[in-house]
């Protein structure tokens, strides 16, 4: 029986969960999507604890508002949209908090550029360090570009899926991805110089 449930597609699982309310179906969905969502939200926020909270909130919303899902959309698109909205809200909340905490120690209307030792050319660029540098660079680009770049280049979703998740046109998705990549190159030019 359990094997049969695992064979069901995401859409079949959620529709069955809607009708029967069987929590086993929900647990299967959680096991399928928890890591991709954690990865996506972590790359967007750059903070593991917040990212876990956001993903848990995402699943709570799916559980509570399961009836809002319509079979017309892909389940992955629906859950990525929820996670993206929650991640954006959390990011803006954190940014406001950081902005005020830094500004309280400095001059008015002036933000500080936190010195980043990782950008120095003499820093060792092994994979671990490199990933940290890339993550910091990701956090420096605009959040709209960042979301598009993460969904395309890290999560490897199609343009159509990204368009549905971000609720924008495919052309806009492409332009955002290109601009995001360009900004990333600008920030990461030192590690790719050689």
């Amino acid at each position, binding site marked *: 029986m359990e094997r049969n449930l695992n064979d069901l597609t995401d859409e079949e699982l959620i529709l069955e969960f809607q009708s029967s309310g069987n929590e086993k179906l929900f647990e299967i969905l959680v096991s399928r999507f928890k890591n991709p969502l954690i990865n996506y939200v972590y790359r967007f926020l750059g903070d593991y604890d917040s990212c*876990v909270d956001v993903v848990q909130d995402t699943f709570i919303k799916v559980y509570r508002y399961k009836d809002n899902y319509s079979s017309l959309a892909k389940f992955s698109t629906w859950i990525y949209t929820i996670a993206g909205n929650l991640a954006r809200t959390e990011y803006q909340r954190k940014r406001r908090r950081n902005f005020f905490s830094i500004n309280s120690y400095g001059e008015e209307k002036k933000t500080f550029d936190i010195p980043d030792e990782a950008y120095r050319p003499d820093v060792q660029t092994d994979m671990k360090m490199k990933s940290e540098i890339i993550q910091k660079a990701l956090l420096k680009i605009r959040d709209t570009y960042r979301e598009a770049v993460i969904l395309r280049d*890290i999560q490897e979703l199609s343009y159509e899926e990204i368009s549905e998740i971000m609720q924008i046109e495919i052309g806009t998705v492409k332009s955002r991805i290109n601009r995001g990549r360009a900004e990333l190159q600008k920030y990461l030019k030192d590690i790719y110089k050689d």
Partner: protein
Amino acid sequence: MNDENINKKLLEDLKNLPKVEAPKNFETELLRKINSSDKDKKKSLWENLFTPPKLVPAAVALASAIIVFFIVDGNSEVIEDPLNIEPRLRENVFITETMDDVSLQNEIVELNKETKPEQKAIRQKSVKENANDKQDEGVKVKTHEMLGTDRGIISNESFSEKITTDSNQSDEVRKMDENFVPAPVNVNPEEISKKNLNFMQRSLSTQEKQEVQQLKKATIKKEAENEQKSDKMP
């Protein structure tokens, strides 16, 4: 390294970024949150709504407000300011006025025959204006007229004219009023008594109507004679 190579390398690195995984207790923590949120939801629906300490003061205030509203509203009466109440219009008064209007039209025709053309115009104007003013003045003037017609005292027309001249008369009419002498009325004061006064004006006998018409004509003729005399005077 050119831009294309940098782009390729960047895309590769992004793809190969280490995958972040969920903590081991993710599911248990999630289920705990879901269960707690469900309890909160149930609590918010029932307990929060019917928790006595929270609801009692509000319920008491609401109930007392409703009771007070109904008590006050039940006993309240619409009290009108007597100074702002418009006088009631009486149908019988209108009836008598229409009769007067008819008689006034006849008088104008008669006057046209008798008096000079200049005087005719002035007289017609004044009579018309008086008629209009009578309508404007409302019940007050009309009741005076009623009294006159009922008792055969036509001289009350001059009384109504006096009232109307106060409000809206033209200069020409005012000049006329200066020269106006009230017509002598042959009425025995003993005839006027409360019993004889017919306030309601419900039924005027034909004889009474004829008397009224005759008296009106007599006063108008006398007025015309007085005007002629005054015109002749240097």
